[in-house]
């Protein structure tokens, strides 16, 4: 019912509470609290996937986050499906669908398994070497093949329907890890009065106590003590206890990312709950209690399903009540694995033998094995595992040779010892040091304000761990400013002390062998691959890692790094510290995109900025284009019109009658103060002192290197007040640029800058009838040519609301720009539109604006310039003052490269065939028949069909452009070559009379 391998009375799950799920379509029963791994094992299933490269059958190796093998696809419904989930972490919920991955057509018979037979061709570095040539084959053959053959899992096709939450948190002490060390430290810090957050990736606190059955703390069973302590902490107001929460990333200044899995274990989804919650914690002190990870033994066929870590075997037995086999062998280099045999034996499971590669294991465990009647073979090794879809035997031989004895087993528990989890310490950019006595890397030099305690700090003894943790908890609490409180004391005891451990290849997988002894299960890296990498000249661990891909899979080599390093060191004839450890990176375990992206999805991904007239534009059928974050009306198609027809009509109507255009997105900066003119003298190339109040001027802004940075019209409202406009996209950076100079280079100037972009709605009315349209609406401003000529500004009223009215033009027509407070924007627009429509004018969008300005040769900074143009290159040298002693860019303009001849200059281009419209970005050459690569003279920056000119027009950057007026150049395209004539930049109304109409 709940699985044939579940042992009644063993483990902590409740037999009555069951959950049903499917595995590859087969319905199975689990207990509430099971992981997929424990539930599969309870049902006698070890084979759960195929490996990445060789498609070898793979089983469950661990019982935790380090799992490299048992990656599954978990689905709740069609949209809620996630590949590459670790079966050892995912809790079972009623109704879940689990599929194995990387197999076809079925798990037991997989065609890709063919790769295993071809494995001599798939050696380390195979991809780099084989798929080098011919280059073209990469795209067509190699990459698709590799992708299809390799792919780990299949991405879901539907959008993620869940939501994710994000929380910022601050605390005195953040404890990462809820084992004995973490709980003790959290308790000590909390009792001292500190604000504490403690998190653990498991559903319950306890860490190694999940499997460690021989621990007593304060006279209680270790697991019970852990649950009680977690309860005590959860009840304290100054403590946050987070389970199912992984500390995945340690960033600068004690900023730590945690991800809490909120609903992935629930059968019934509560829609109000986020699937996951991202915690961004800023902690005064961080305590790392990350524990340690057991290593596997490296021997031939060590990847057969049924072979797993000894601590995992204990977890499945002691926590989940599952026997991983009925005749279990143990192969170890460390005392800890003996306890797995003891636990199994006591639970009534047959233990075939303990094979220990050491001559002298710990006395205490040996004595206990003898007492329980378990055969121990010291100085022996498992040189090969038998069986394919599941281990069925081990070949055991005396170290140094001799005949092998075959022992039948249906599971093998292995341990090469323990690797302290220094991942987060390493992420904090602390430096690890190698402890030669225990052959492990431990925290060395700290860079951030954190402390490592317990197993991840190399502290093995239980009481020493407790004392270290309590001291760390109190110390960090005090250092964070906690006062008062009480001190905590705890005593703990373990049944056995442990010794031993080895790293690297075991007997039978040494340098003289070619057996498949895996070190990295997820990337199918064998001991021999590391040696091959060294033979091929990789001497740095970083190169070896990339050549073999050891440790580069999603488990980041939690099991494989130390083995790989030891084998590399041996092959190189160096000590381990000389070979060095690769750096651990965030995240510790994979984090979903959902948690990272969080609320920034859909409309919240990038906020849209809309002008005050947006609703009107929408209602009048405007198509919109994105300009930065702005939604701008692009053109207003009437029925039956495409873009081309609409724009042609708008362009014609503006010049024949008039048009109304939403220019609200223009950047606007109010420059105020007694030194405002002096400041603008420094920020723009033009002179501003001689600009009279009531007048406007076109200004060019440079950077100090002399290149055009922005442009715009500046109106002087009073002696000490200027209304500066910038390009739509340039507003924030121009403001920053001005603030920078004002605050740091010219702080003596009395000037105040205010961004007013969003405070003003701007309605441009352009065309011969522009004055007639607005005149009846305007109060207090004489609009006549004499009183209010081109480039004037005045304050008054329009439709009864305040306005800053500009007489200016970006079309070459008689024009006004009506600025009104944003809230009045739509009302004033509608009033203007009512008159405009009656007179036959049109509303026009950005596309028409672009065409009209190009007809006049007005440039757009950022389209016709690219950050390498000087004012002279753009034909604007008239706007650069020759008299001013200083402005930003004055020196840059004199740089030798900026004054030499032959620079690219903006010119006009007229296609020989007036119907042909050039492509923006197209390259320009002098001789289209020259050999490739051709000498390119420049490129087309703006190109349009001009209805008003009855032909195409274009602007272009061309080397020595102004000296080429009248010359014929060529624009080679893929299908033809277009002949063009270089012209000046003004295509319409060259005399400019219309401006003054």
């Amino acid at each position, binding site marked *: 019912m709940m699985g044939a391998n579940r042992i009644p009375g063993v483990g902590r799950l409740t037999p009555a509470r069951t959950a049903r799920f499917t595995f590859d379509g087969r319905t199975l029963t689990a207990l509430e609290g099971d992981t997929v791994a424990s539930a599969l094992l309870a049902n006698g299933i070890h084979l759960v996937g195929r490996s990445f490269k060789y498609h070898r059958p793979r089983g469950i190796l661990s019982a935790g986050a380090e799992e490299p093998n048992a990656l599954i696809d978990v689905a709740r419904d069609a949209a809620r499906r996630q590949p590459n989930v670790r079966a050892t972490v995912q809790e079972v919920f009623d109704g879940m669908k689990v599929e194995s991955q990387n197999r076809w057509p079925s798990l037991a018979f997989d065609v890709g398994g063919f790769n295993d037979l071809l494995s001599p061709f798939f050696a380390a570095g195979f991809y780099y070497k084989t798929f080098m040539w011919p280059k073209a084959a990469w795209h067509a053959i190699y990459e698709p093949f590799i992708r299809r053959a390799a792919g780990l899992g299949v991405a879901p096709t539907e959008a993620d329907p869940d939501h994710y939450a994000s929380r910022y948190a601050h605390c005195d002490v953040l404890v990462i890890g809820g084992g004995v060390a973490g709980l003790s430290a959290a308790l000590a810090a909390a009792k001292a009065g500190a604000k504490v957050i403690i998190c653990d990736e498991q559903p319950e606190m306890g860490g190694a106590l999940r499997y460690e059955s021989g621990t007593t703390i304060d006279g209680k069973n270790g697991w019970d003590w852990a649950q009680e302590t977690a309860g005590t902490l959860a009840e304290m107001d100054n403590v946050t206890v987070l389970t199912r929460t992984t500390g995945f990333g340690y960033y*600068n200044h004690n900023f730590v990312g945690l991800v809490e899995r909120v609903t992935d274990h629930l059968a019934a989804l509560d829609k109000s709950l986020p699937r996951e919650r991202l915690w961004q914690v800023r902690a005064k002190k961080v305590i790392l209690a990350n524990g340690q990870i057991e290593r596997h033994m490296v021997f031939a066929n060590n990847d057969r399903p049924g072979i797993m870590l000894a601590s995992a075997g204990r977890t499945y037995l002691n926590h989940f009540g599952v026997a991983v086999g009925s005749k279990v062998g143990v192969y170890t280099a460390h005392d800890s694995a003996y306890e797995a045999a003891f636990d199994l034996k006591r639970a009534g499971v047959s233990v075939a033998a303990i094979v220990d590669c050491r001559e002298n294991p710990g006395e205490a465990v040996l004595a206990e094995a003898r007492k329980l009647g378990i055969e121990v073979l010291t100085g022996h090794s498992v040189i090969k595992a038998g069986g394919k879809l599941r281990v069925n035997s081990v070949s055991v031989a005396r170290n140094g040779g001799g005949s092998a004895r075959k022992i039948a087993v249906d599971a093998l528990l292995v341990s090469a010892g323990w690797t302290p989890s220094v991942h987060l310490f390493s992420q904090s*950019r602390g430096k690890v040091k190698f402890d030669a006595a225990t052959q492990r890397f431990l925290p060395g030099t700290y860079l951030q304000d954190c402390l490592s305690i317990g197993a991840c700090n190399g502290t093995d003894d239980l009481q020493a761990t407790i004392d270290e943790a309590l001291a760390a908890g109190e110390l960090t609490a005090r250092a964070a400013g906690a006062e008062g409180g009480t001190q905590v004391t705890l005593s703990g005891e373990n049944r056995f002390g442990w010794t031993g451990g080895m790293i690297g290849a075991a007997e039978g997988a040494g340098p003289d062998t070619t057996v498949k002894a895996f070190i990295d299960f997820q990337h199918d890296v064998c001991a021999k691959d590391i040696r091959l990498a060294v033979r091929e000249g990789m001497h740095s661990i970083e190169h070896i890692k990339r050549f073999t891909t050891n440790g580069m899979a999603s488990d980041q080599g939690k099991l494989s790094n130390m083995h790989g390093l030891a084998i590399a060191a041996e092959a190189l004839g160096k000590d381990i510290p000389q070979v060095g450890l690769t750096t651990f990176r965030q995240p510790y375990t994979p984090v979903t995109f959902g948690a990272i992206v969080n609320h920034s999805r859909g409309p919240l991904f990038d906020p849209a900025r809309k002008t005050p007239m947006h609703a009107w534009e929408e209602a009048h059928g405007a198509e919109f284009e994105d300009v930065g974050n702005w939604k701008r009306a692009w053109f207003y198609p009437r029925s039956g019109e495409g873009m081309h027809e609409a724009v042609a009509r708008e362009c014609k109507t503006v010049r024949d009658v008039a048009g109304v255009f939403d220019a609200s997105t223009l950047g606007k900066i109010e420059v105020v103060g007694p030194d405002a003119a002096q400041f603008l003298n420094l920020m723009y190339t033009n002179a501003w002192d001689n600009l009279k109040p009531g007048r406007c001027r076109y200004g060019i802004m440079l950077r100090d290197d002399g290149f055009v940075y922005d442009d715009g019209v500046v109106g002087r409202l009073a002696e000490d007040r200027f209304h500066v406009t910038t390009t739509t996209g340039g507003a924030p950076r121009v403001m*920053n640029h001005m603030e*920078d100079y004002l605050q*740091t280079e010219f702080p003596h100037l009395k000037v105040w800058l205010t961004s007013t972009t969003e405070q003003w709605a701007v309605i441009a009315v352009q065309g011969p009838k522009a004055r007639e349209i607005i005149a009846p609406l305007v109060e207090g401003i004489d609009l006549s040519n004499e009183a209010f000529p081109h480039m004037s500004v005045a304050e008054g009223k329009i439709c009864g609301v305040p306005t800053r009215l500009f007489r200016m033009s970006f079309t070459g027509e008689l024009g006004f720009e009506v600025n009104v407070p944003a809230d009045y924007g739509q009302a004033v627009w509608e009033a203007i539109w009512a008159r405009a429509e009656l007179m036959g004018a049109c509303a026009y969008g950005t596309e028409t604006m672009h065409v009209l300005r190009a007809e006049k040769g007005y440039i757009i900074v950022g389209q016709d310039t690219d950050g390498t143009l000087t004012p002279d290159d753009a034909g604007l040298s008239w706007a650069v003052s020759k008299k001013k002693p200083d402005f930003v860019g004055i020196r*840059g303009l004199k740089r030798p490269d900026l004054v030499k001849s032959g620079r690219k200059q903006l010119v006009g281009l007229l296609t020989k065939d007036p119907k042909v419209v050039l492509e923006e970005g197209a390259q320009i050459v002098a001789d289209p028949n020259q050999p490739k690569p051709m000498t390119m003279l420049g490129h087309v920056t703006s190109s349009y069909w001009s209805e008003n000119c009855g032909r195409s027009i274009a602007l272009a950057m061309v080397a020595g452009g102004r000296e080429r007026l009248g010359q014929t150049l060529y624009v080679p395209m893929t299908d033809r070559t277009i002949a063009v004539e270089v012209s000046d930049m003004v295509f319409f109304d060259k005399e400019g009379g219309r401006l003054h109409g």
Partner: protein
Amino acid sequence: MLLIYCPYCEEERSELEFRGAGDAHIARPANIADITDEEFEEYFFLRQNPKGLIFERWRHIHGCGRFFNAARDTVSDRFYTTYKAGEPKPDISAILQSEQDKGAAK
């Protein structure tokens, strides 16, 4: 994510509120129009990109809007101090010494 003390707001705030603004203590020459090409190159283009102590500018752009200076270790990202624009370069060895003294006093 860095934690940065704004010397104008007199508060530690998250890096999200700030924007880096390049090296500090590079004054724009008062006679910039007259300097040589080499002097301009030195002023505008050349930077040290040191490993270790750097004096750099930050702007509290989503806060008070002020530009200020910081002394930071580019390896550890530790801020030795931040200070207002226009103030002289702080003496880092003095800062370290005073920390040591405080540590010893404890």
